[in-house]
């Protein structure tokens, strides 16, 4: 049975004179992987920042699995199962990779000691292929490995309900792209997690996403399979006639 | 608040006057505006506010004494006597704050005289202001030689100057036959002027002496004291003021200088109640200078003060309070003698007359040469505790010889 996990109602955000997000409403289903695409400046990252609590919306509401999110702090969202990654990976450079993965556990008030969580952490590292790097400082990782590290950290925030990925493949070596794709699938399957993937790489979108949301000028201009949206005249117009 | 205070004072003064004077003069006094006397003293850090508080207490009781026993002072509408009123000014031990506070006392409170200065830097800074305002300035506890050496018309010294103290220490050390004197002085005005002077006196006197000037803000004096230990003195002159004085005692014990080397503290720190609590056994045999000893015979005014002080504060009055009390009643006596509160006339009376104060020595301000200009010389004693937790009154008087009550314990 398909059920709704995220409802967005009439969400708007202005920055001065720029209307970055205009009255977006959407409904995302549990366990689906969505591609969020659109030309530069169409409001994709703003939307991700709104959902993940980094911006407060001017109007509208966001409901994750029955919980209203708009008034929550970013740290509370992790506890509710909402996890995001950043385009420029945010890792803790001088902590080891293992410590980076353990960090979400440190803050959630769980009584288990770090030692008890070590197995789960190594499991997450195995999934992301970072086991060999466990004792290295995170600062020594490549961009792709740092992205994998963010995903490994997401695995520790279990159960993940919604994973927001902002350009996870930007500047990543092809071998690691495979690994990232694999990990995203793992998270999606293990937790029945909904994934929203912002990317410009249509091949990975096609491979991963059952559903694509296209944004243009702060609004959702099309939604459907990649083939469906490619055919939409609005989408074609938004990309200035370039074929998607 | 101000209104309430002056009202109360007027009522108190009136009640006192009923006992001593006629009904008519009492009516006049109740109606008279009080004569304000300023107390300019450190009441907040970095000044020594402990001393400032004692000075204020002495001055306030001085005013009470003047109003109850002397029937107030002569107001400008002579011959109707008016009550005196103490107005506080906080100098924080800083020259610039002292100057600002004095200006405010003069312009806002219209004071007719000021006393209380504790730090020499403050006294020297306000001295020209007192000249400018023609305001009698009684220096309660500052001790720089320059204060009287400046020969200013409105400044009067009742406190001993650094030279008196140095004279006493020198004479004491000579008379007890010490040969190697270590001097520890602070990097303040007091330490950097008196310290080298003391060393020179000892060396000139045929002794060997070394001087260490330490940083007042640095609580760790062990490195200094290790050097002192190497010098192997037979007496240590501790010129620390406040916390450093204690630190020198404690840390001298740490390096093994105490208890075998006699130590002299340059002022009456050991009479403060916390001395024994802080030092315990280490305070035993401590030698110190004092301007007062509880067994000494006081004037009637001095006895009155001790009694009132004990009633108000439940402890005996110490030198700072006695000195400020003395200054207040001397000033009032001068106003009475001049039949005026005008600075020129009061100063004239101060120079002319002899006045009663708290001790038997009395107060007179002759315009003598050098540092003895308008300065009333007061006795200094060298005392020694002979057992731990000893009361101030039981300390042995070692010096001057005519007051001596016992022998030096080593």
């Amino acid at each position: 049975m398909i059920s709704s996990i995220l409802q967005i109602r009439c969400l708007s955000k202005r920055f001065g004179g720029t209307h970055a997000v205009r009255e977006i409403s959407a409904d995302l289903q549990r366990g689906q992987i969505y591609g969020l695409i659109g030309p530069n400046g169409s409001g994709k990252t703003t939307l991700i920042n709104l959902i993940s609590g980094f911006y407060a919306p001017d109007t509208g509401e966001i409901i994750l699995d029955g919980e209203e999110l708009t008034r929550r702090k970013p740290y509370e969202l992790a506890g509710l199962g909402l996890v995001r990654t950043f385009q420029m990976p945010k890792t803790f450079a001088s902590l080891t990779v293992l410590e980076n993965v353990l960090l979400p556990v440190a803050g959630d008030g769980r009584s288990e000691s770090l030692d008890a969580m070590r197995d789960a952490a190594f499991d997450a590292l195995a999934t992301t292929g970072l086991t060999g790097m466990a004792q290295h400082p995170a600062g020594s990782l490549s961009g792709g490995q740092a992205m994998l590290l963010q995903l490994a950290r997401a695995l520790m925030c279990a159960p993940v309900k919604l994973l927001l990925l902002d350009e996870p493949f930007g500047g990543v070596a092809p071998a690691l792209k495979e690994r990232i794709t694999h990990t995203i699938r793992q998270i999606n399957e293990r937790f029945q997690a909904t994934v929203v993937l912002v990317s410009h790489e249509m091949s990975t979108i096609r491979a991963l996403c059952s559903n694509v949301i296209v944004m243009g000028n702060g609004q959702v201009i099309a939604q459907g399979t990649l083939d469906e949206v490619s055919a939409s005249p609005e989408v074609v117009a938004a990309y200035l006639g370039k074929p998607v | 608040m101000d209104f309430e205070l002056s009202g109360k004072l007027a009522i108190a003064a009136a009640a006192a006057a009923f006992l001593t004077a006629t009904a008519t003069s009492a009516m006049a006094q109740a109606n008279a505006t009080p004569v304000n006397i300023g107390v300019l003293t450190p009441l907040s850090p970095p000044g020594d506010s402990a001393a400032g508080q004692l000075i204020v207490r002495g001055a306030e009781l001085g005013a009470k004494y003047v109003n109850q026993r002397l029937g107030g002072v002569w107001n400008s509408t002579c011959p109707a006597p008016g009550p005196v009123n103490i107005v506080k000014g906080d100098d924080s031990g800083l020259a610039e704050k002292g100057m600002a506070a004095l200006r405010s006392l003069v312009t806002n409170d219209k004071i007719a005289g000021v006393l209380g200065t504790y730090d020499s830097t403050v006294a020297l800074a306000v001295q020209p202001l007192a000249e400018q305002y023609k305001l009698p300035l009684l220096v309660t506890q500052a001790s720089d030689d320059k204060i009287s050496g400046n020969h200013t018309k409105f400044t009067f010294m009742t406190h001993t100057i650094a030279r008196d103290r140095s004279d006493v220490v020198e004479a004491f050390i000579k008379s007890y036959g010490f040969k190697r004197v270590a001097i520890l002085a602070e990097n303040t005005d007091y330490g950097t002027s008196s310290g080298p002077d003391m060393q020179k006196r000892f060396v000139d006197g045929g002794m060997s002496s070394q001087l260490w000037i330490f940083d007042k803000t640095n609580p760790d004096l062990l490195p200094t004291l290790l050097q002192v230990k190497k010098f192997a003195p037979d007496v240590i002159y501790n010129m620390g003021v406040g916390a450093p004085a204690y630190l020198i005692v404690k840390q001298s014990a740490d390096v093994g200088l105490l208890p075998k080397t006699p130590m002299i503290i340059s002022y009456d720190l050991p009479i403060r109640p916390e001395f024994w609590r802080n030092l315990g056994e280490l305070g035993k045999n401590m030698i110190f200078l004092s301007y007062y000893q509880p067994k000494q015979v006081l004037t009637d005014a001095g006895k009155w003060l001790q009694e009132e002080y004990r009633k108000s504060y439940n402890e005996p009055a110490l030198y700072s309070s006695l000195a400020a009390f003395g200054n207040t009643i001397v000033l009032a006596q001068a106003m009475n003698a001049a039949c005026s509160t005008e600075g020129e006339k009061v100063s004239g009376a101060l120079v002319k007359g002899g006045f009663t104060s708290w001790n038997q020595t009395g107060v007179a301000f002759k315009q003598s040469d050098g540092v003895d200009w308008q300065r009333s010389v007061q006795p200094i004693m060298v005392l020694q505790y002979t057992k731990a937790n000893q009361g101030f009154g039981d300390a042995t008087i070692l010096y001057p010889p005519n007051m001596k009550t016992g022998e030096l314990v080593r």
Partner: protein
Amino acid sequence: MQLLLQSLTLALLNGAIYALMAMGITFIASIMRIINWSTGEFYMVGSFAHLALLTVIFPALGLTLPMAWLLSALLAMGLVFVLGMVVQRTLIAPMHRPGTQAFEYATIMTVALSVLLQNGAIMIAGPNQYSVPDYMRPILLEDLEIVLNGSRVASGLAALAIILLFYVLLYRTSLGLAFRGIAQNRLAAETAGLNLKTMDMLAFGIGTGLCAVAGALLAPVFLVHPLNGAAATMKGFEIIVIGGIGSLGGAVVAAFGLALVEGLGATFYRAELQQLYGFVFLIGFLVFRPQGLFGHRERRV
């Protein structure tokens, strides 16, 4: 030789206490990104709390324990830990919003706080100096002709133990990991689910607690009075600049280094310049290695 040994021992003991204070400052700086200018006043409050506990409250309760001083110092640390958290939540947190101008005011608030605490102490306790009984008898090393103040030895050792415990907290517990994460990257730490508001409050409590226990331990050596924190603040800042702001290891190394430079300089050259040696050391670092021993060349955002 004897003099050298004695001043080296002293430097070691002083270093431990310096390290405690500097860690308090640098810990708060690395978590909250503000400099706590009221460090010396928390040191002072710690010394007063210790004085009250040891000389008034324990005797009133009829408590006679061996090592009561250690219990008292730790309780003083606990009290200031709580006070620090209350102060952080009520006075600093409202302004502490990184990236806004109000953030700068949080630092100013700590300056105001130092004045408040100092004057408060004068009002409550008066301006006099107090002391507590020595923790231990002097230690006499006969062969070397060295006498060591028992309180210095005891407080130095206690300080080392507390530093060690603090390291265990930081490197062996989940709370410590959370702190280290926040010190690295506040934004990422928040995304990972750490409540920065709570962690900031804890960090301020811990940092001020470390300074307080230094003040408490040193009570019999450097006395208890409202202005006894001034030297602590100055030394603390010298050390964190030398060690590199935000580097705990740097703070520890710099603390021992400073104690050594001061002690040797004062013993073998001129004692009155003791404070100056520290500043020369500091200026040397600012000229040749401005980021400090273990600091980074630029401040992380």
